[in-house]
């Protein structure tokens, strides 16, 4: 079932075109990986989906992006960002306590009741496999956590607003292998309830967790297929070159 339908999407920042004529679909409950060298447009693609590109003054676009058949530029911007959550490249806790970090989005959507907030925080932390480590540290500053814990906290924070789609922007770029494994494990378990799009610089990570993989190069979508096919028998030679580390 198609969750996100992208038709002839072009994106510009000033005169520079970041994405060229992208048409693709994201299926419900899959992990779709986007790989490609830097400046390939994969991050602009991700930030398009929850409309963070709108923050850049020189941003322009054409084409359409539909979430469950509805144009995302015509839905209320705060609602779209609740439905499509985002986990950033570097662990980026807000300068608040662990509890307040997770409760932030829920509070902003108008929930004031202490009990509901506590419940939401506990559920989200459990989903991110962080509850055991955090249940006695809820009121410490989030900056005191380790990098891996911080990143899982950011995942929990995103889950707490009950999104339908989660965007991961190179979520493991600052993490050690053990923390990376924990984040990947969380992603694999999350996909039964969520649709996940993962932008990564680490090709092996795409091979480990991706159901399908998209290869971007200089703003174009070169190839999108089952991960296994991309990694064993890609139809475009440039995909093969990139995966084998010949450039980028």
């Amino acid at each position, binding site marked *: 079932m198609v969750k996100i339908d992208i038709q002839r999407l072009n994106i510009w920042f000033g005169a520079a075109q970041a994405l060229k004529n992208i048409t693709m679909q994201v299926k419900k409950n899959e992990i779709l990986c986007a790989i490609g060298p830097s400046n390939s447009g994969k991050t602009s693609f991700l930030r398009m989906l*929850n409309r*963070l590109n709108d*923050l850049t*003054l020189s941003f322009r676009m054409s084409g359409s992006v539909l979430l469950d058949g509805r144009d995302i530029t015509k839905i209320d911007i*705060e*609602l779209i*960002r*609740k439905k499509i*959550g*985002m986990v*950033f490249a*570097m662990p*980026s806790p*807000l*300068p608040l306590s662990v509890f307040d970090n997770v409760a*932030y*989005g829920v509070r*902003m*959507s108008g929930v004031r009741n202490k009990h509901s907030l506590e419940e939401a925080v506990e559920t989200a932390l459990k989903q991110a496999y962080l509850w055991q480590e955090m249940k006695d540290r809820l009121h410490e*500053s989030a*900056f005191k956590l380790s990098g891996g814990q911080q990143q899982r906290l*950011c995942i929990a*924070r*995103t889950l707490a*607003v009950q999104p339908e789609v989660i965007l991961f922007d190179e979520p493991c770029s600052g993490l050690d292998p053990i923390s990376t494994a924990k984040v990947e494990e969380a992603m694999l378990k999350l996909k039964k309830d969520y649709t996940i799009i993962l932008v990564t610089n680490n090709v092996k990570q795409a091979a480990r967790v991706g159901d399908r993989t998209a290869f971007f190069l200089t703003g174009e979508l070169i190839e999108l297929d089952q991960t296994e096919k991309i990694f064993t028998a890609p139809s475009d030679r440039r995909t093969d070159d990139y995966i084998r580390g010949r450039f980028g």
Partner: protein
Amino acid sequence: MTSLQRQKIAFALLFLANLLVIVPVGLIVFIIIQKGWPAMTWQFITDIPRQGMRAGGIFPAIVGTIYLVSGAIVFALPVGLLAAIYLSEYAKDNLLTRIIKLAIVNLAGVPSVVYGLFGLVLFVSFCKFGASILSGSLTLGIMILPIIITASREALESVPHVFREVSLSLGASKWQTIRHIVLPNAIPGIITGTILGIGRAAGETAPILFTVAAFYLPRLPSSVFDQVMALPYHLYVISTQVPNVDPKITYGTALVLLILVLFVNLIAIIIRARFRKKKKW
């Protein structure tokens, strides 16, 4: 002469230039403290001026200055803070923004006596507030507006951009993001700017000359439409307009004003230093 010898001479001259500035500053502070200290009694601070300001204390002037400064802040802080929020969070890179920035620079450069003229026509005459605390406070408030805007804007802009993106990505609106994430993290800088504005407002004389300051008024004001004495104007009056004032009293008044202004600045410096240590990101 070798180039190294030349360097030595040049550096010595540059150091000397600094002494030419720093030594007089030290001397000024020293002289005021030395000559003003004997006047510093409890009575001097809490009594009204007596015998045509040649004896007694300066209490009404201290109170007047505190009223004027408070009034100025009540006006300038909200307007200045919101203006800073506009510039840091909403303004696009366009002509309007450039004009606003230029206007702020100009507002900061308008001579203080011109503020006095402006306050006189707008508040005293046109708005019919008369020479009053209200007129004087508003005039001082507009004068310190650029200080508050500039400091608050710097504080707001120093909050990392990623915090805003995170907050927005969790479905918060722009205003919620400003209110719950940007403002709380900019507060120390905003307070510092406000305090510097207080220091400036407390020491200025020219803007209050025609808008509020009373030559001699040995009682406390009862409403915002009353005139008041103010410390800087009082110092001007007793050092130039009243003959035969005991230098102890003029130096004492100068010392009180200096302590007030420096104390306010010291608080700003302490807040700034503490915050730098505690900074979380």
